């Protein structure tokens, strides 16, 4: 396996003073690898991504990004270290244009020439974004908005991208585009940590699958094997994991 770009090691995390949501979660993503986290609603998938991107500080455990423990650092810092996070649901800035949204992806870039260069690169990568450049982002279809979110996330050429249910609410065609782009990210050497409800579809694209339940990874392995694992179905139906 390629060298680890991002790993969560024995992470415990939760909200406020409530009981922990993640209880000893460990997961590793290598360069050019797509790792998929699947699991029932409320299992802690989104929470795991929030810990990885600095939106939520873990109570204990390590978050290692490119060899460095970054647990508890702010999202701003992690962004600078090569991490991008596309959160669950719609996250475009609705009352801004597509152009403004994409440029905000380069908010921390102070060099205008560099910014312009990145804008051109993502426009090429996401044709819909270029087509709808002047439109208000909130008026785009769900699939188009996802494209804008991807474009915004790739503005800084991240080493690792966290995608939280990117196909949620999309029609089959828009879903196919999303998975094609995940595949493209992998081929350009980006590490992808993908969370999906649509486990079967996600495991077709991913290299490694991890089944998360009650804040911990219960089963993990090559995505192809996992897709065929009868325990996956049982877990989704509420059965015991082991």
């Amino acid at each position: 396996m390629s060298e680890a770009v991002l790993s969560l090691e024995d992470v415990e995390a939760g909200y406020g003073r409530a009981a922990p949501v993640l209880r000893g979660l460990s997961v590793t993503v290598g360069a050019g690898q797509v790792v998929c986290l699947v699991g029932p609603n409320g299992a802690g998938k989104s929470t795991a991504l929030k810990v990885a991107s600095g939106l939520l500080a873990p109570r204990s455990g390590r978050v290692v990004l490119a060899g460095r423990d970054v647990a508890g650092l702010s999202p701003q810092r992690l962004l600078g270290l090569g991490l991008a996070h596309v959160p669950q649901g719609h996250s475009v800035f609705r009352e801004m244009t597509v152009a403004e949204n994409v440029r905000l992806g380069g908010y921390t870039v102070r060099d205008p020439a560099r910014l312009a260069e990145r804008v051109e690169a993502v426009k090429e990568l996401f044709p819909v974004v270029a087509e709808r450049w002047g439109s208000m982002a909130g008026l785009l279809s769900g699939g188009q908005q996802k494209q804008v979110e991807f474009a915004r996330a790739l503005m800084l050429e991240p080493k690792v991208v966290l995608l939280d249910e990117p196909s949620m609410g999309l029609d089959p065609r828009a879903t196919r585009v999303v998975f094609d782009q995940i595949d493209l990210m992998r081929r350009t050497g980006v590490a992808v940590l993908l969370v999906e409800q649509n486990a079967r579809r996600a495991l077709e694209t991913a290299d490694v699958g991890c089944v998360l339940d009650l804040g911990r990874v219960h089963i993990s392995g090559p995505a192809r094997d996992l897709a065929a694992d009868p325990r996956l179905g049982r877990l989704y139906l509420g059965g015991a994991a082991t």
Partner: protein
Amino acid sequence: MSLLLQGLALGVLTGGLYALLASGLSLYFGVMRVVMVAHPAFLFLAAYLAYTMHTAFAADPFLTLPVTVPVFFALGVAVQRLLLARLAPDNLAMMSVLLTFGIALTIEGLLGTVYTGSYKSISMDYATRSLTVGGVHLPYDKIIAFLVAAITLAALFAVLIRSRFGQALRATIQHREAARLVGIHTERVAGYGFGVGLATAAVGGTVLALITPFLPASHWAWIGKLMAIIVVGGLGSVAGAALAAVVLGVVEGLVLVTIDATWATMMFYVFLFLTLLVRPQGFFGGRLAHRF
């Protein structure tokens, strides 16, 4: 007919001022989802300071602005950082109302102590004159109020749309988590957003002092009106609030000349209820309300 034109013209002029007075409330709601009950109290604090400038130093009330605008900005940042940002997120809406209610009472008390509870007003020599266009009388003080409001709002919009800070502020209002994920320090930006909101109160209050008499308790009459404006406009949308302010100003002006002052004020609440019944997300943008 000329009566209606008169009402319309006055309505546009007052509506422009309302737009400025409400813009701060929109900003606060946008950045923190809180209702800042003390905004009108700060308006009248600025009004009293302009009054002091005029009476004690015999100077133009607008000369207070170079002092009050930066001071109010700093106060706004302080209120957000030191008080509101420390409230627990779970009951922020409730606690922020109590807290800012307390601030409003404190300001009212201070004003009462310093200036007594009787009406004060600033009468400039231009206040009694008016411009007559096609049978419509436009008092100079209202025209000046409108122009100052328009210039201030134009400056505010230029900052919101063109500047890097404005981009960060709008991003923070529209999707806080996504804003953090592109590297915006949303806490800091929210503080400055409050500062800008309160800075508009410095200008708005000074203008208000020119066109209406006031006493320490005057702010109570305003919180309802301004709340109605930002709900009709769409909570958190500065542009929506500005549009709603002009529309409500015109409605108020027309009802004022055709019926009476009580009904004119009532229009704000009629529109508020209609909005809540028909279109709780507001009529002019702003999609924050239905997140509740």
